[in-house]
């Protein structure tokens, strides 16, 4: 069956939708505003002149525009989204409802603190959940996302070394399998990055790490290790790693991107961790929103806690207070301020709503089901695909591309064919240490039936590849709103904004 060509370009429920700039009715607006008070303008000499170039649309046109755009997106609400390392779990709508309570949404960051005691209580309660779940001494609440939390942790480490007369420590050791944000963050702190390879089991090689620590001696500031790591495996020797790091006078930063696999089972303080960020938008299910906003509170050991950035909420007998200035009161040694206002407050509300809904028992069940789902997918796929490492895995499983050897089909082809099957592809080609990686994170909010459908599709694609039907893959996807997009053309001559089409007169002038 070939699809019929249509005069409109639409295909049934798949609509083509022009840019808003191409739907302009000059002078039109979807917002009616009340009449202006009669007062004299006080703009001085900076009044804007001329047109800005924004298009005018009516409300029905705007609602239809975005409804149609939304329908071109794959989302958790519409299907299985096993994007490894991103934790695409169900986003409960209760959390959205709570964040929209006027007492949370309609409060201003600079109201007198006496008028926002409930907000302070919310921050303090969220902080208490995070410190209790991790066993850590304190938490810096203001980092805006995971990478920002890493930055917070490494800055605390830098400040602590400086305070201890160890300013010469300027090296961060990071495994090659790490997320790109780890080395990028280290560079932001003025650090040099030293990489260590993974062993055959996909984990940090303790002997190699110790040798690296010895090689760099008292210049090592910290070791940054993701645990569970980006291969979906728990670093079995993490206590020994922490001991070796501490013996070298350095700090142990644990990247908590994958905290969702172990939450409610152990306290990371018992692993010897000095700092770890928590992605509230992953572990605690706040929505990913097409790329944020997230939140990356960073839990800290007692040694690092004094350096946490402001603002710091302080609980006193007469109510809550907040220290907003580094160098004062509870923030005497604070390293400064990392973000405007009080952090990602609206994200805290959603995360707390989720944590309260789950409870300590529900969170333990969630990490259990996440790990169960990943191991189930790994077990079922292993008949046709090649797992990169031996299990059990944690919350995600990774396959390499040995099963595609000689087929002419690539990991990218498999991913694009999965789109036609109605699934969001797993993370591809990451971690970098696995050749042609497919990183699958099912999360705990998928049913067995959903996992079985995905497994059936992926197994059938693997068999198809092995049957020598490579050509069918190269055409995929065929059923999505767009087919493969030319990603090399885009950066060659970047078009990053709409510009009005040249008028005939301008065209002639140019010629």
């Amino acid at each position, binding site marked *: 069956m070939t699809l019929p060509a249509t005069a409109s370009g639409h295909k049934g429920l798949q609509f083509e939708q022009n840019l808003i700039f191409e739907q302009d009715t000059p002078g039109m607006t979807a917002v009616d505003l009340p009449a202006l008070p009669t007062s004299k303008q006080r703009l001085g000499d900076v009044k804007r002149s001329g*047109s800005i170039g924004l298009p005018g649309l009516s409300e029905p046109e705007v609602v239809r525009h975005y409804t149609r755009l939304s329908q071109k997106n794959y989302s958790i609400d519409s299907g299985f989204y096993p994007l490894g390392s991103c934790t695409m779990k169900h986003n409960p709508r209760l959390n959205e409802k709570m964040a929209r309570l006027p007492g949370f949404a309609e409060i201003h960051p600079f109201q007198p603190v006496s008028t926002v005691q409930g907000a302070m209580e919310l921050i303090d309660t969220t902080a208490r959940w995070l410190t209790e779940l991790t066993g850590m001494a304190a938490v810096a609440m203001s980092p805006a996302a995971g990478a920002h939390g890493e930055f917070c942790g490494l800055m605390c480490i830098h400040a602590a070394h400086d305070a201890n007369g160890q300013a010469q420590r300027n090296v961060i050791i990071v495994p090659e399998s790490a997320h790109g944000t780890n080395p*990028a963050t280290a*560079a932001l702190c003025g650090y040099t990055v030293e990489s260590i390879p993974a062993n055959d089991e996909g984990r940090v090689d303790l002997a190699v790490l110790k040798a690296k620590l010895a090689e760099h001696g008292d210049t090592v500031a910290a070791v940054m290790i993701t645990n569970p790591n980006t291969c979906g495996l728990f670093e079995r020797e993490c206590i020994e790693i922490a001991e070796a790091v501490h013996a070298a006078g350095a700090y142990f930063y644990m990247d908590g991107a994958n905290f969702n696999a172990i939450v409610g089972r152990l306290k990371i303080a018992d692993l010897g961790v000095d700092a770890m960020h928590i992605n509230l938008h992953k572990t605690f299910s706040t929505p990913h929103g097409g790329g944020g906003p997230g939140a990356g509170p960073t839990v800290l050991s007692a040694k690092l806690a004094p350096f946490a950035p402001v603002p710091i909420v302080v609980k006193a007998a007469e109510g809550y207070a907040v220290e907003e200035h580094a160098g004062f009161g509870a923030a005497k040694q604070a390293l400064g301020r990392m973000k405007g206002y009080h952090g990602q407050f609206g994200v805290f509300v959603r995360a707390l709503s989720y944590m309260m809904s789950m409870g300590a028992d529900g969170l333990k069940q969630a990490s259990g089901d996440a790990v169960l789902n990943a191991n189930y997918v790994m077990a079922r796929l292993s008949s046709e695909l090649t797992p990169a490492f031996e299990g059990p895995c944690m919350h995600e499983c990774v396959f390499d591309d040995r099963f595609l050897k000689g087929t002419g089909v690539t990991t990218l082809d498999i991913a694009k064919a999965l789109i036609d099957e109605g699934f969001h592809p797993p993370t591809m080609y990451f971690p970098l240490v696995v050749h042609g990686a497919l990183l699958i994170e099912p999360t705990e909010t998928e049913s067995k039936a959903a996992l079985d459908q995905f497994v059936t599709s992926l197994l059938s694609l693997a068999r198809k590849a092995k049957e020598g039907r490579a050509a069918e893959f190269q055409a995929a996807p065929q059923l999505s709103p767009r087919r493969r997009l030319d990603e090399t053309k885009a950066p060659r001559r970047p078009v990053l*904004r709409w510009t009005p089409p040249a008028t005939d007169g301008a065209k002639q002038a140019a010629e």
Partner: protein
Amino acid sequence: MRYLPLSETNRRDMLAEIGAGSVDELFKDLPKKALASARFDLPKTMSEIEVERALGTMAAKNMNCAASPAFLGCGNYRHHTPASLDYIIQRGEFLTAYTPYQPEISQGTLQAIFEFQTQVALITGMEVANASMYDGATACAEAVAMACRVTKRNQALISGRVHPHYRDVTKTQMKFLDVDVECLAPDPYGVEDLIGRLTPDLACVVVQTPGFFGHLSDYTALGEACHKAGVLLVVCVTEPVSLGLVKSPGAMGADIVVGEGQSLAGPMSFGGPGVGLFATREKFLRQMPGRLCGETTDEDGRRGWVLTLSTREQHIRREKATSNICTNSGLIALAFSVHMTLLGEAGFKRLAELNHATACDLADKLEGVKGVKLLPSAFFNEFAIALPKPAVDVVEALAKKGVLGGVPASRFYPTYPELANVMIVCATETNSAEDQVKLVTALKEVLS
């Protein structure tokens, strides 16, 4: 547990398929010692009703600006948002998608980003804008870092009319890099000289319009002087509604414009999440931080969008990336863009006019209160006033009367006693004439 679909039968069958005896067996790599000692002093699972009750009680302890006359600004603004905005951003296809790594099934998010980038470029008067940063303050820090890369210099000068949080975040972010950030003293009277401070070693000068104390200034002459000295002009905008009425930073010669989009995107939400705006000139494109969406075509030749120029970013360049940013503020950027689309050129300009007219109306009334002095002569929707008493006490007394009257400058500048009596007041289209009368009446009582 309502969010977990597996039944006990499912779990048993799945364990059998895996060949494991229990879920705990799957966690065998975790250190036994740590597993054994884990006790969590936390509540157990709660129903929706119970969560609503608990959080509802907490929310009710706050005095909210929808229920009380509120005149608060300082970088975070209360505006009316059309009902369709929240409906659109709560569509699951936007809310529960992630970064558009697979463009064939993310064209909705990508096209919205492309439109957002265009809108930000247009209102700031710049050539290109990125897909968003965390917030205005972190965007400001990124701008300074970018200016250092572009100019290969390592000194920055920050005006005393820049939001103190933007200043502090920038200083903190540069703390461990070889960059000197000089911050000028707060400038509530709008008298500082920046041109006289330009040196050939400066990477950039950071200014803000409208300024933190409300001043509107034309930075065109500063821009020209900067360019003569090879210095970049970074302009912060904490209230983007102003751009509907006030000359754009691009028209003043800005090289980088950063800002906070919250005021157009949605609720104040105690200051976060917001959305950082970041725009610059095309020639600096490859030094820009953050994600960028670009136009391309698919295999059938149809127009489409992809994330592009990612060789600047951490997932490719690692320690050599222009920034470590990954997750940004996608949904708030969408909300910003939806509101801009609803407003259109006519609505955006009208909203700006309404804000200014409301603030002028309030200024007229406040100037009639004995002992109150307005500091800026030209402003947009916000201005500092000098009071005959410490502003902290006035603000607390007003709050007791049910009015959130302004923000005391001393909250930001505790070590400047000369600012003790300064209060920053803001009026938007959400402040009715009755609200204004309530403020003026209460203020008269407090000052008498």
